[in-house]
């Protein structure tokens, strides 16, 4: 079984493994304006997210979590993509990302590195892993300043 199944190269692209091994924006913020946490109870994947919003711009994000490579790399890539964006832009990227995974839509250039997760669409039971951090971001953005929330499993 030395031969690699092509689907794994598609699912576990190098950029995903790199974010899994060296997560960007891991940790916490000193002064988050928005916070949320979430879990997939069946898997045990967990993400806690701090967001700092100034005006309508997301200026800082940090996350803590544990779970599979898909859930953790997705969170890392999300923070990279969304930091510096307006809240409206973050919501737009969220929709594009979900469309890529759930509707197998062609990746939109606006997704940047997040395009690497498109292979997950071929593994329906893993889609929830990739979406967890986005559900948490969605919940964080729904909160009033400094109010934490816990969305149910996705």
């Amino acid at each position, binding site marked *: *079984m030395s031969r*690699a*199944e092509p*689907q*794994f190269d598609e*699912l*576990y692209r190098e950029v995903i*493994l790199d974010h*899994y*091994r060296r*997560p960007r924006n*891991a*940790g916490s913020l000193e002064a988050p304006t928005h916070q949320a946490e979430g879990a997939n109870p*069946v*898997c*045990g*994947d*967990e993400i806690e997210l701090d967001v700092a919003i100034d005006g309508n711009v997301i200026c800082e994000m940090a*996350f*803590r*979590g*544990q*779970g*599979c*490579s*898909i859930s*953790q790399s997705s969170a890392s890539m999300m923070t990279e993509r969304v930091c510096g964006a307006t809240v409206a832009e973050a919501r737009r990227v969220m929709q594009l990302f979900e469309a890529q995974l759930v509707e197998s839509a062609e990746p939109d250039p606006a997704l940047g590195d997040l395009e690497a997760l498109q292979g997950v669409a071929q*593994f329906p*039971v*893993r889609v929830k*892993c990739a979406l967890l951090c986005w559900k948490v971001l969605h919940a964080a953005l729904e909160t009033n300043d400094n109010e934490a929330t816990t969305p149910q499993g996705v």
Partner: protein
Amino acid sequence: MSIDTARLRGDFPILGREVNGHPLVYLDNAATTQKPRAVIDALTHYYENQNANIHRGIHALSIEATEAYEGVRAKAAGHIGATNPQDIVFTRNTTESINLVARAWGDANLGEGDEIVLSLMEHHSNIVPWQLLAARTGAVLRYAGIDAEGRLDLDSLRGLIGERTKLVSITHMSNVLGTINPIAEIAEMARPAGALLLVDGAQSAPHLPVDVTALGCDVFAFSAHKMLGPTGVGVLWARPGLLAEMEPFLGGGEMISIVKPEGSTWAEGPHKFEAGTPNIADVIAFGAALDYLQDLGMESVREHEKRITAYAIDALEGSGGITVHGPHDVEVRGGAVSFEVEGVHPHDISTIVDAYGVAIRAGHHCAQLLMRHLSVPATNRASFYIYNEEREVDALVAALDEAKRVFGYVESRTAV
């Protein structure tokens, strides 16, 4: 007599199929087992020849169906060394059996400050019903610990059992670690305290010779689908006399003796706990599963599993980067083998080995207390049964090699 897996596999139609272009390697038997042709045929035979409601019709079909259904009560009793089939109640599954005891016995016998002793290796089905009972009655839960090798800490357990202990509820075999608990020894601790001893036999009844009299427990619960039978059938055995002391669980038809406007009296024996039309077809097909196991002999089942479990532990740990949880001595453990692959999360493992047709379980295995104790979010679990062969362990190890290759070496991490 040793099990001839090559011949026996022919009895299981599903084992002939392919998954993702590879022959199915089914190693998720602790979750549910596959079904032999005899069980599938028994279901069809019942619906094609005997279908009728039981215990009420005075016609031929009803009489035949009743005899078939009641006959399985005797077979289930025989499987666990119980003397009287009337001490066997059919439920939906182990979970319902335990909930039945929590309601029908627990509500009447526990009060404020009474104690329920469990262990950290229990399945959620042997934790949550007691948490609900504690919430209703004010009883308190105590959890016995486990040692570094994944064995129940008997000193910790002994220390927890005292005057206030009303119930000790312990798994016979861990669904995660494979650990077999010394029930007879635990019964010696529970008896002087006057505590009821319930044994969760979901993982032991399918894999070990069980004798409830020798174990000395008061209640024993297990599920048909984990031992070749259909889903939707559970078994509850209670020591002679205990069912009569218990209040009904669900009310309805079948469980009554006389119904009057002002109140009712209850049916005798197990019927008091089998309200409504039961799962007749699946109970009857479970009889075929019990016959199948008895023909093999539970001693032979146990020997086969000891052999393949020892082979699997050696093969997994010998392949590098893999740690097996739980005892390594197959004399004190069964065939549920949980393991970690260094740096690769169990869900990633499961996805990759599935592509090679290998079915294992990844997750918390309904044992979150144990996961917390082991300081892991989840584990991989391969679990074996009568039809598994060493070459299937080899297929698992080869698929794991591929997972290790895809991931390279990933330092185990938790984002901080």
